[in-house]
């Protein structure tokens, strides 16, 4: 595949002082644009056997139903030509409805839910579509500054169809009042690029009286994909 340079402002700023830990962790030199055939034309193969029965239903992993608002999240993973990224591994992880992660270092004074780990994984289908059922995550405080609260979000990790398409990002929910105060969200200078991280409420994806639906399409970098299987 071919990877055009990303326009300025679309990626977050690697050193963004209001997000404090970027100051010593973000590379200071611009990334070096290089040609590497293997990076842009090969990728790992993830067997469908890796996907376990409840990996796509995060509300079905415990002994009973987790607390909180059950939702369904779906969307398509596309490349820059608009072609579906098929059979591609995608991981998600998130905190529970109370804003607490299943993680030993999370000290937020909110309850864990024994019926909710908050992680899943799946493969995109032939149309590049993914779909999973979960609980709407809560906002939570973090130590970056006084009254620092993260807008509710779900982490996405995508492996694409070629190695160079790898992407980790966060999906947000519409109309979150915390957007203006969150340095992680604000670290993306381009307003349109930032807003593409916000999912869309979808009545079409809403399932009867069971759960509300949210749609989040993802565009990975790369053009001129070689058709699979040739």
């Amino acid at each position, binding site marked *: 595949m071919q990877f055009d340079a990303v326009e300025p402002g679309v990626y977050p700023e690697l050193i963004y002082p209001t997000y404090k830990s970027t100051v010593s962790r*973000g590379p200071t030199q611009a990334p070096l644009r290089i040609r590497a055939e293997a990076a842009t034309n090969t990728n790992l193969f993830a067997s469908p056997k890796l996907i376990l029965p409840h990996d796509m239903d995060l509300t079905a992993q415990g002994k009973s139903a987790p607390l909180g608002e059950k939702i369904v999240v779906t969307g398509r993973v596309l490349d820059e030509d608009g072609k579906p990224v098929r059979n591609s591994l995608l991981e998600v992880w998130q905190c529970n409805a109370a804003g607490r*992660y299943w993680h030993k270092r999370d000290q937020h004074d909110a309850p864990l839910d024994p019926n909710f*780990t908050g992680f899943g994984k799946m493969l995109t289908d032939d149309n590049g579509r993914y779909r999973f059922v979960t609980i709407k995550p809560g906002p939570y405080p973090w130590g970056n500054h006084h009254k620092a609260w993260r807008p509710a979000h779900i982490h996405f990790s995508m492996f694409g169809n070629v190695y160079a398409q790898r992407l980790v990002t966060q999906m947000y929910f519409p109309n979150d009042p915390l957007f203006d105060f969150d340095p992680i969200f604000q670290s993306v200078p381009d307003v349109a690029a930032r807003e593409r991280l916000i999912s869309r409420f979808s009545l079409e994806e809403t399932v009867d009286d069971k759960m509300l639906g949210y749609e989040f399409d993802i565009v990975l970098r790369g053009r001129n994909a070689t058709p699979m299987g040739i």
Partner: protein
Amino acid sequence: MTSKITTSQTIGPFPHEAWRWAVELTAKVDSAAPQITVKGCIFDGNGEAINDAWAETWMPDSAPLESAHAIPGYRRVPSGDDGGFAFQITRSEHAGKGDPVAYVTVFARGLVKHQFTAIFLEDDPALAESAILNQVPAARRETLIARKQADGSYAWNINMQGAAETVFFDYI
């Protein structure tokens, strides 16, 4: 052309439990081919070890030799309390000369976009002809080259900043 790509966000401090499946899946290498180990540490701009970073490898030359794996040619490792990490790499005698033994992706809290880099071995006789290294300014190539140790393993550190800042790539 206006790019509509989805931008990146940090993995944050809490992926460990969610990412563990792939750590466990790739920890044990099942291959008859020769193995080497690359060990290193990841440091921030103050020289402090980063204890919540992650590294993944893609090893296209090794993948055909690991057909018993659920994900051949792939590893995922978290950094330890001392910033340390280690990869076991299957060596392919058919590997391209001067190619990296592993393409490496780096993730961390405070790293708003993952970074791509690669590992080359210092005793690769074709290093001088490497198509990739020859695209890197000579003064910075050193940051991509793992050094052989007395115990046979290779040492390779990741420096996010500073005089020895690792070369990070954006692929064309």
